[in-house]
C-alpha cells in the first residue's frame, strides 16, 4: 500500500512538471477572456468519451483549392450532428457557401459578405429550405432550433430530422467560392466543425478547454500544497512547542496561536491574498489576482497555523505531564533543554504526520477559494470558480470538470493520509507496556 502511495505522489509531482507543457500558453493567458473561447463548443465532453458514444469531435477542416473555390472535406461517421459549423473568411468580399452531402445533393447556405465569422446553424432560411427538402415531417424552425438546426443538414433524406434523427454518414464537402468570380489560392477561409466533444477533458460553460485549467493548474496547486503544508508543519512545531514555555515570550506566542486559531480562515485568506497579491483589471469586469505560489503557500500556512499549533501544544502539554520530565526538571534541566531533548523527539514524527495530513487539506482549501472567485494565480481553484461565474441558473454539473479534480484530490489525499498513518503507526502510537512503565 505504501508503495502505491509513493507512486501516486511521484505521479502527481511528475504531472505538475510535465502537465503545463502539454497546454497552449495562449489558452492560459486568455483563460478569463470570454471572446477568445467563442470558437469552441460550450459544455461538451472529452473526445475519448465522444469516441465511445459516437459524438462528432471538434476540428479545423483543411481546404483544397479547386478552380477558384476552396473545398473542405468532412468525414461524418457519427451518430449525432455537430453543434455547428463555423466559417471565418480572411477577406471582406462576398462569398458563396454551399454544402454537398454524400449523395451528391448540393445546398446553398450563404451568398454575401460575412461580417467577422459565420455560424451555419444560425442561417434560418437556408436551413429551413434544406429541412423542407429533406425532412419528413417538415419541422418548424423552433423545433429545429431547440434540437440543433444542423440535424437538417446531416440527416438522411425522407426521415424525421428532429425527433428520430437518422444520420447520413459519409464525406460532406463544403464549397466556398466568390459570389462574383473565383477566389485566389491565398484567400483560404477557415472552417471549423464545432463538434459535441472536445480535447482531452472537454469544455466548460464558456467553451474553455478544461484540460488547460487542469494541467496548467496542477503545477501551482502541487507547489502551494507541498510548500504550504511544509511551512505550516514547521511553524506549527515552533509556535506550538514554544507557547508552552511559561516566560513572557512563551505567553505571547500562546496568545498569538490562540488568536490565529480563533480567526475565521476564509476572510483571513481572502484579505491576505488581496494584500499580498498583484491585482490586474482585465477588460473592466474581471480582476485577475497574480500571486507568487510561494507567497500563497505562506498565506495558506498562516491561515491554518492556529489550529495546528494548538494540536502541537496539547501534545507538548501531555508530554510535560509525564514522570520522566519531572525527574529531568528536578535534575535542573531548563524548559528549552526539556523541549529539545525530551519533547522534540516526540514532536518530529508528529510534524511529519501533520505535513502529510495537511497536503490534501491545503489543496481542498485552494479549490474552495475558487468558489468565492478569489483565485490567486492559476491553480485548481481556477477550475472551481467556473460554476460560480456561470451563475447558479446556468450551472450544470459537467462530470468532466468535477470528476478529474475529485479523483486527483482523492488519490493525493489517499496517498498522503496513508503515509501519515504509517508515520503515526511507527512513531506516535505508544504500546501499552511502555505507557505503564511511564
Amino acid at each position, binding site marked *: 500500500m505504501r508503495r502505491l502511495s509513493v507512486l501516486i505522489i511521484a505521479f502527481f509531482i511528475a504531472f505538475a512538471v510535465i502537465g503545463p507543457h502539454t497546454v497552449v500558453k495562449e489558452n492560459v493567458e486568455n483563460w478569463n477572456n470570454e471572446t477568445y473561447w467563442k470558437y469552441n463548443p460550450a459544455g461538451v465532453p472529452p473526445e475519448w468519451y465522444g469516441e465511445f458514444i459516437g459524438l462528432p469531435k471538434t476540428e479545423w477542416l483543411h481546404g483544397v483549392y479547386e478552380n477558384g473555390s476552396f473545398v473542405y472535406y468532412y468525414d461524418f461517421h457519427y451518430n449525432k450532428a455537430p453543434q455547428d459549423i463555423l466559417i471565418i473568411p480572411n477577406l471582406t468580399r462576398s462569398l458563396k457557401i454551399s454544402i454537398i452531402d454524400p449523395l451528391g445533393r448540393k445546398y446553398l447556405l450563404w451568398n454575401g459578405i460575412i461580417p467577422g465569422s459565420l455560424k451555419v446553424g444560425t442561417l434560418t432560411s437556408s436551413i429551413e429550405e434544406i429541412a423542407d427538402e429533406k425532412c419528413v415531417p417538415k419541422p418548424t424552425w423552433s423545433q429545429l432550433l431547440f434540437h440543433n438546426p444542423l440535424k437538417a443538414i446531416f440527416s438522411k433524406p425522407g426521415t424525421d430530422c428532429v425527433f428520430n434523427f437518422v444520420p447520413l454518414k459519409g464525406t460532406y464537402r463544403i464549397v466556398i467560392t466568390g459570389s462574383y468570380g473565383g477566389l485566389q489560392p491565398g484567400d483560404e477561409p477557415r472552417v471549423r466543425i464545432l463538434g459535441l466533444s472536445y480535447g482531452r477533458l472537454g469544455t466548460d460553460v464558456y467553451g474553455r478547454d478544461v484540460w488547460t485549467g487542469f494541467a496548467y493548474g496542477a503545477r501551482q496547486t502541487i507547489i502551494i500544497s507541498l510548500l504550504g503544508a511544509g511551512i505550516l508543519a514547521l511553524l506549527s512545531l515552533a509556535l506550538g512547542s514554544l507557547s508552552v514555555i511559561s516566560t513572557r515570550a512563551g505567553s505571547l506566542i500562546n496568545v498569538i496561536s*490562540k*488568536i490565529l*486559531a*480563533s*480567526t*475565521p*480562515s*476564509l*476572510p*483571513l485568506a*481572502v*484579505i*491576505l491574498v*488581496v*494584500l499580498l497579491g498583484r*491585482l490586474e483589471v482585465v477588460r473592466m469586469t474581471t*480582476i485577475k489576482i497574480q500571486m507568487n505560489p510561494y507567497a500563497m503557500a505562506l498565506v495558506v500556512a498562516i491561515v491554518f497555523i492556529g*489550529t495546528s499549533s*494548538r*494540536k502541537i501544544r496539547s501534545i507538548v502539554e501531555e508530554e510535560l505531564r509525564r514522570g520522566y520530565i519531572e525527574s529531568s526538571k528536578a535534575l535542573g534541566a531548563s524548559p528549552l533543554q526539556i523541549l529539545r531533548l525530551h519533547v522534540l523527539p516526540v514532536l518530529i514524527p508528529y510534524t511529519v504526520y501533520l505535513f502529510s*495530513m495537511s497536503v*490534501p*487539506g491545503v489543496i*481542498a*482549501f485552494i*479549490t*474552495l477559494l475558487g*468558489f*468565492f*472567485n*478569489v483565485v490567486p494565480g492559476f491553480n485548481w481553484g481556477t477550475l*472551481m470558480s467556473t*460554476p*460560480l461565474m456561470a451563475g*447558479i*441558473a446556468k450551472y*450544470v*454539473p459537467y*462530470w468532466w470538470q*468535477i470528476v478529474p*479534480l*475529485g479523483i486527483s*484530490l*482523492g488519490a*493525493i*489525499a*489517499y496517498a*498522503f*493520509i496513508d503515509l501519515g*498513518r504509517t508515520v503515526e503507526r511507527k512513531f506516535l502510537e505508544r504500546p*501499552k507496556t511502555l505507557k505503564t512503565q511511564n
Partner: protein
Amino acid sequence: MAKNIVSSIFREFIIFIIVVVLLSTLISSAEARLTGKSVESAVQPGKLLNKTREYLRFSVKVFNNKTMNIITITKNESTFTYYVPTPHGIYTSWVGTTPGKSILLTLTIMTLSLLLILIFGALWGLRAGYRGGLPDRILSVLGPSFSAIPGWFWAVVLLWVLWWKLSVLPLSYLDYVHRASVEGRVTIFTYLKGLSLPILTLTLVNIPVYAMTVRNLVVREKSEDYVIIDIIKGLPDRKIERKLLRVVLPSFLTFTSYSFLNLLINDMAVEVLFNVPGIGRAFLIGAWILLYKGRGDLLFFASLVMSVMYFLNTSIFEALYLRLDPRVRRDA
C-alpha cells in the same frame, strides 16, 4: 465551577475582541491598497479606530429596516432628490434577504448539521471503536477519504444524484422558496426542503470524520484497565459503551470546538453552491465588493458574524467541557 466557566468565557471574549480588531485592520489595509492609498496610513491607530467604528456602525445599521435615505436639495427653484441606499438596503439588494434571516439560515444549517453529526458520529464511532467489525471497516475507509476530499466535491456528487438525476430535492434554495411564495404554498417544510441539500451535504461529509475521531478515542480508551475489569466482570456491552462515551466526550467536544471553523468554511461553500442567502453568500458578495468597489464593510460584517459564531461555539463547548470532564470538576 461557575467561576471557572465565567472566567473561561471572559478569556474567549478577549480573544474575540482581538480577532475583530485584527480583521478590521486587515480589511481596512486591503481597502487602502485597492483604492490606491497607502497601507501604512490606513493602519495608523486614529484612522484604524475610525475605520473599525465605521465597520461596526455598518454592522449595526444593517439590521435597521430602512432601505433608502432620501436627500432633497433645492437650488435655484430646482429640487433634486437623491436616494442613498442604507446598509440594510445594500445588504438586502445584494444578498437577497435581510441580515437577520441570513444569520438564521446559516444558524439553522449549522445547528441541524452539527446536531446530526454529533449524534450519528458519536454512535458510529463508539460502535466501531468498541465492537469493531463491519462498521469499523467501513469507517476506516470512509473516515480518511472524507476528511481529505473537500466538502464541495461531495456537495456536487449529491447535487448530481438528488437534483440532476433524481429531481428529488431542489438545487437553488432561493428559487425554490420564491416559487413557493408566488404559488402561495410556503410553510416551514418549504424552507426545510430548500435547505435539505445543504444540510445533507454538511452532515454526510462530516459524520465519518467525527465518527473516526470518536473511534480513535474509544480504541485508545478501551485498553485501559478499568474497561478490561468491566469486561471481566461481565458488564453488558451497552453499559460499557455508555461509560466509554462519557469518558471520551470531553476530548470529543474539544475536537468539535476546534473543527467548528472547518465546518463553517464548508457551510460557506455549500451556501454559495446551493444559492442559500446566508452568511456564506454575504461573504461572497462582500469579497466581490471589496475587490471591485474597494469597500470592505460587508466583508467585515460577514467576518464579524463568523467570529461571533465561533465565540459562541467555543464558549458553549468550553462550558460543557468544564462540566463534563471529571478531572476539571475535581480541580474546581
